[in-house]
């Protein structure tokens, strides 16, 4: 019995390790080769140098792209969070005909490749003066995925929250809005952070919509990287990519820390 369990344990451990290696391996290759000292990308890296990081961090295209991406992703995260959370509240608290259908509709952009969305948006925006071109349109495009991502996280969180806690607040004299703000919202906090982080990371890392819908003058970092990777594939691209990977990792770490509390 013990040996069987140990055998099974080893098997599971090995499978998990292989799974993680498969997922994280390419990232490790990028990060590792970014420290190389050669003028071309090599793995395993030859020598050790931080000069590609220095190059990436002093290149105005990368730095500018980073701040454009940061602004874009923050805006998308915030708007997704507000719209998605309110939609999740409505979908879990109100009972109306077509509720399940609406929920499925809200989540449907998640199953489409972003390239398809990007092409569709290009065609759509070509025939409408609905939003000023460039970043506003890109934000609208990113919301198509950001809002469902927030919904995905917030729907189960809201369904788990004990409704009677909000009722208790009302019973004690809090108006429905106050009850939501004082009692339900604090209970949602870990979920809110996770949802915002997801939307942020999606928007920050997204390429297709940014290429199709965004403006060339306000190119986010991913578009700058995409262009650089095509034009001059030197280790600066890898260093900038590594910085992106580390940023995403940091965000996930923060999310874990916040949801623990």
């Amino acid at each position, binding site marked *: 019995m013990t040996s069987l369990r140990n055998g099974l344990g080893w098997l599971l451990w090995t499978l998990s390790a292989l799974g993680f290696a498969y997922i994280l391996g390419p990232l490790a290759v990028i990060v590792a080769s970014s420290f190389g000292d050669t003028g071309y990308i090599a793995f395993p890296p030859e020598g050790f140098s931080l000069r590609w990081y220095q190059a990436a961090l002093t290149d105005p295209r990368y730095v500018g792209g980073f701040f454009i991406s940061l602004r874009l992703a923050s805006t998308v995260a915030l708007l997704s969070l507000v719209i998605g959370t309110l939609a999740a509240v409505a979908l879990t608290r109100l009972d109306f005909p077509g509720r399940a259908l609406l929920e499925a509709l809200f989540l449907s952009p998640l199953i489409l490749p972003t390239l398809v969305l990007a092409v569709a948006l290009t065609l759509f925006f070509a025939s409408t003066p609905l939003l000023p071109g460039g970043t506003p349109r890109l934000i609208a495009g990113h919301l198509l995925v950001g809002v469902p991502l927030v919904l995905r996280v917030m729907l189960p969180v809201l369904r788990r929250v004990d409704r009677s806690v909000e009722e208790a*607040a009302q019973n*004690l004299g809090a108006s429905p809005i106050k009850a939501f703000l004082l009692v339900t919202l604090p209970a949602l906090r870990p979920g809110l952070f996770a949802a915002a982080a997801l939307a942020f990371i999606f928007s920050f890392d997204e390429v297709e919509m940014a290429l199709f819908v965004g403006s060339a003058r306000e190119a986010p970092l991913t578009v700058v990287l995409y262009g650089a990777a095509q034009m001059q594939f030197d280790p600066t691209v890898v260093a900038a990519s590594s910085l992106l990977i580390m940023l995403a990792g940091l965000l996930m770490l923060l999310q874990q820390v916040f949801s623990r509390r």
Partner: protein
Amino acid sequence: MSTTLTLEGIEKRYGATRAVAGVDLAVAPGELVALLGPSGCGKTTTLRMVAGFVEPTAGRVLMDGADITRLPPHRRNAGMVFQSYALFPHLSVAENIAFGLKRRGVPRAEIADRVRRMVALLRLEGLEARLPRQLSGGQQQRVAVGRALVINPAVLLLDEPFSNLDALLRESTRIEMRRLQSSLGLTTLFVTHDQAEAMAISDRIAVMHQGRIEQIGTPRAIYDRPATRFVAGFIGRANIFDALREPGVTLAPAEEGGAAWLLRPERIALDAAPAEGANAAAGTVEVVSFLGTGTHASLRLPSGRLPEGPAQWTDQFKPGAPATARWDAAALVPLRAA
């Protein structure tokens, strides 16, 4: 300062189903009335209509004569203790208790004072800074009670407040609750499915069935003189006879009328003499169980019926022995069908 709570023809329909089908109830100042019934009888919906969480389809809710039917929950001065306690998970014990006072704009110093007194009253000293998840079930229950009482509510609403406590704690807690309620003179509506609980602490019990109050009265009146078959069967152990005569048994009740007849087990005496005439039934002792406070024997009658037997102080009957059950004509209570 005590409030009268009146329900007038309260009704709640969900589509075609009537969860509450016309409830009239007047709770006197300082009175504790239990809404007792099986799940789905409409008792919780009735309580939630008083709290304002469910809007009645018809009828009125009055507090001291003022119509509050359309008032939102936060404008009614009703303190409610929820079955799940519904404590605010991110707030400490003291903050939970202070919540209602803050919403009422009570000055800070007075809040601190009233919270301190409530904490002392409910023996929660030393736990003020704890979060709800750091408390035992009994302590959580006391916080829920304190939070509802500290606002000096006009009426107190209890939704199965003891059902999540273990059996021993449940009994001591309900006595404590009753003591608090009567010392504060709080008009109270108490929802429960536990008949022993309702009998133990209520001034009056309203037995609900299929959205209606089937009978309302003191615990003694409900137990001794149940009006219907349902009430007789729901409260206490009951033998119910549908006819005055069945094989081996003839009933001769003291009162006329009735679609069925109730005979409580403790009104039955067992002896070894042969059965003669009415209000006696000969049968065979089937099961004898020693219960500590008495010995319980069940008797199989010739009709095959196995009535709820009497509690006897003797162990003279053995399983399989013949025995005769006897009772007074006055022990037979006539019951309405519905």
